[in-house]
């Protein structure tokens, strides 16, 4: 390993985050190279400074923190989310109910000719007229696929 390679790995070496082989190679290089040894001590210095001497919080911080955190109410965002979730559930239930009711209602209306019907929404207006059914009645309308001309 040359100095450039070693110096790019010194941080990870210091943190023991390299493979055993790399650790050994770097240790060997550091034994022989004063410049890289100095570089290692400089990085170690940064690490030590950061790891030491962090100021203490103010004495009343602990109690203030406990009181604020435990009394925190849900954010407006969370309340909105809950409301939206409930609204979606309610809307979905209503749609499902309407679909079921529509299906039941549709089953209760006999087709114009059993087994030969086609749905109203796929036929032309003149066919509806031809079926002699009230097109505004709201129910599903069936007419014979074999119509007399």
């Amino acid at each position: 390993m040359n100095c450039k390679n070693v110096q790019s790995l010194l941080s990870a070496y210091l943190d023991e985050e390299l493979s055993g082989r790399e650790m050994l190679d770097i240790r060997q290089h550091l034994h022989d190279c004063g410049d890289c040894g100095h570089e290692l001590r400089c990085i170690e210095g940064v690490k030590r400074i950061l790891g030491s001497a962090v100021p203490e919080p103010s004495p009343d911080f602990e109690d203030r923190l406990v009181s604020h955190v435990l009394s925190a109410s849900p954010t407006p965002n969370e309340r909105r989310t809950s409301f939206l979730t409930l609204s979606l559930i309610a809307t979905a239930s209503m749609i499902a109910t309407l679909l079921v009711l529509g299906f039941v209602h549709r089953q209760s209306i006999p087709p114009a000719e059993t087994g030969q019907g086609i749905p109203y929404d796929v036929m032309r207006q003149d066919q509806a007229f031809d079926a002699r059914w009230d097109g505004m009645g709201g129910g599903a309308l069936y007419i014979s696929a074999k119509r007399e001309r």
Partner: protein
Amino acid sequence: MIFSVARENPAHMVADAHLFEELIRKTYKQAYGLAFRLTGNAAEAEDLVQESLIRAFRFFNRYDQSLPFTSWLYRIMTNAHIDSVRRKGRLKVTSLEQSGSEGTATWDFPDFDAAPDKMMMERSLNEPVQNALGAMNAEFRTAVLLADVEGMAYEEIAEIMKTSVGTVRSRIHRGRKQLRRHLMNQTPSTYRSYCDEL
């Protein structure tokens, strides 16, 4: 029935509150230490700890209790910090060439076993280091601090920062190099002597 979805079990809520209070009291000092290094001043550090714990309390049902609470809390805290930095659009305006920012820190040191001159050097290097941290990219700062203040392994940091171990390694390496360069520019003699003492 629909509305029962939104109901919480009050007994669980009380138990969670007791457990959470215990966790706060056990971890707040450590969390404050990291927050102080991340933000560079006491007021912002307190706000960051408080905000992170409030978020953690709200989503406490998502916490996997087989894992360390601090890892989970730090994930929330570092995300909150990075979000806040992005939101403010500030990568602190403090130039790396400036030293001695006003009122950023009140250093209150515990006793060290180290030699007094080494302690003094550390003391005098702390402020330039904190200034350099403030001027650093938030992702680099977070990775370096999780390694150096919390002593976390790269894999753990990668998990917290939702990135790869390779990225963590690169961020830590580049972050420390920035700090080293800054100290060499600002306080070359103290920094050199400090390194020689190691």
